[in-house]
């Protein structure tokens, strides 16, 4: 019967459509900077109730952990438990209703490209975040793009943002001649002053010492942690050319960047 054939063909095509929505994307990310490494990448597929960051709005504690220390989940740093993106989003690689996410581990060196498969679990939007090191709290961000549904290759250029949760002192965290004002804490990652990731194996040069501070200044051997939010476009590292003095422990001829800082190529496979 012609009619029966037609009906079953329609059912078949409906089934094919619903299968094709559960796509595994190929996500390729390229670091376009000359001397900033990317910390492990947080990739989130989500609905419109999830907003990992928003310009003009204060950063969440999860964003502060990512932008100051490159930390996304408990496995990376147990101290971040309850305040990181894992706490905000739910278990990794799971359909958490509003989202599913994955941490693509390791550092992405300057000029390098890596690509990953990522199952979106039918969520309509995609966000991607990664800290730039060495900086105080700079991160590269993809802000809730609509995931394309037509098979093909799609390219996006991403900007560097300032999470606004730490003043950009540009001080080498390996220094022992400076401590956090008030607490006496040594410099480092989350919640304390200083540039994170200066000693990363992907670094281009070693950081200097002796800087007096850029976005905040050393007073009597102490440096203020402070905030400079809400989230905004990063005004770029300053650096200087004196590795033993000057304002910054970064190198102005090495560590600066201009937007965009990353290229993302998303491939939606033919179903």
């Amino acid at each position: 019967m012609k009619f029966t054939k037609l009906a079953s063909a329609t059912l078949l095509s409906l089934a094919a459509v619903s299968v094709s929505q559960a796509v595994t994307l190929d996500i390729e990310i390229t670091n376009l900077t000359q001397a900033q490494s990317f910390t492990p990448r947080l990739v989130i597929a989500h609905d419109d109730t999830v907003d990992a960051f928003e310009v003009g709005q204060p950063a969440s504690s999860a964003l502060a952990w990512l932008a100051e220390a490159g930390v996304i989940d408990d496995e990376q740093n147990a101290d971040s438990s309850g305040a990181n993106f894992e706490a905000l989003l739910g278990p990794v690689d799971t359909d958490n209703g509003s989202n599913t996410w994955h941490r693509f581990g390791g550092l992405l060196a300057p000029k390098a490209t890596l690509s990953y498969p990522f199952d979106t679990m039918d969520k309509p939007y995609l966000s991607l975040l990664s800290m730039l090191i060495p900086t105080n709290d700079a991160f590269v961000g993809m802000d809730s793009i609509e995931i394309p549904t037509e098979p093909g290759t799609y390219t996006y250029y991403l900007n560097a943002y300032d999470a606004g949760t730490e003043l950009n002192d540009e001080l080498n965290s390996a220094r022992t001649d400076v401590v956090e004002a008030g607490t006496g804490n040594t410099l480092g990652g989350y919640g304390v002053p200083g540039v994170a990731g200066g000693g990363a194996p992907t670094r281009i040069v070693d950081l200097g010492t002796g800087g007096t501070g850029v976005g905040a200044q050393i007073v009597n051997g102490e440096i203020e942690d402070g905030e400079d939010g809400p989230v905004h476009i990063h005004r770029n590292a300053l650096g200087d050319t004196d590795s033993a003095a000057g304002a910054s422990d970064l190198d102005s001829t090495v560590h600066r960047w201009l937007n965009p800082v990353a290229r993302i190529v998303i491939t939606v496979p033919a179903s």
Partner: protein
Amino acid sequence: MNNPIIKLSTLLMLSALLAACGDDGDTGPQGPAGPQGEAGTDGQDGTDGQDGSDGQDGINGNSAVYTVQITNLTYSQPFSPAAVILHESGFHSFNEGEPASMGIEIMAEGGDPSMVITEAMDSTDFLDAQNSGGILGPRSMGAELTLVVPELDSDDLRLTVTTMLVNTNDAFTGLNAANVSNMAVGDIKTFMTVTWDAGTEANTETAATMPGPAASAAGGGGEAAGYDVVRGDLADAVRLHQGVVTSANADDPSREGLSTSVLTEAHRFDFPTSRVVITRTR
């Protein structure tokens, strides 16, 4: 006189009489009168009259309504009041590589956008405009401005926005006739914007030449430090801005800083400098 209804009823009465003669024998008494016949069919309708002439067009056609919201993405460059203009294709408030209009010069040097709007209103392509009227602080989202254009023009619609970065000599950001045609109700378009140098004033970064708070803190600023009729830039042409030099690293071995600048490293900015979101609400 020829009356068809009477004729018909006569005929019907006759048939009733015939039906009453049922007896085969002697003729019986006369039967009762038959029922009255049915009414005749109606006559045909007359032909219709001619259509009346069309009414005049209404004064207010259907309107398309848009909201525009600007977010300042910079760390410490307040934005002057913004000119937000909807117009048809063909009009440009400014063109890269060409001298700025006086409206653009006044806006980019002193922060007053009103002449940018009046220049646009002189164009036949103009549709609607708003002056945001206030300073938009760094790292903050502005209020939603509402603009209304005729529905008919929504298929060829351009958005122009200009606002000054006030801690500069003549830097401004915004949109140059961005295409916002054919948006359906509920559609949202987001633009991340670059910054232009108006080309009308040298980038000296001194207190006497900039209107914003950085110059005020150094004893200058305000309206007097804004618009200057002299065009003293390297070239009298709008182009993309190279960023502010500032006094940072003026004493560093690189000597890259501008020691006469009243700006600090905090006033530096990278692109994009603003986000413009337009939503069609009706």
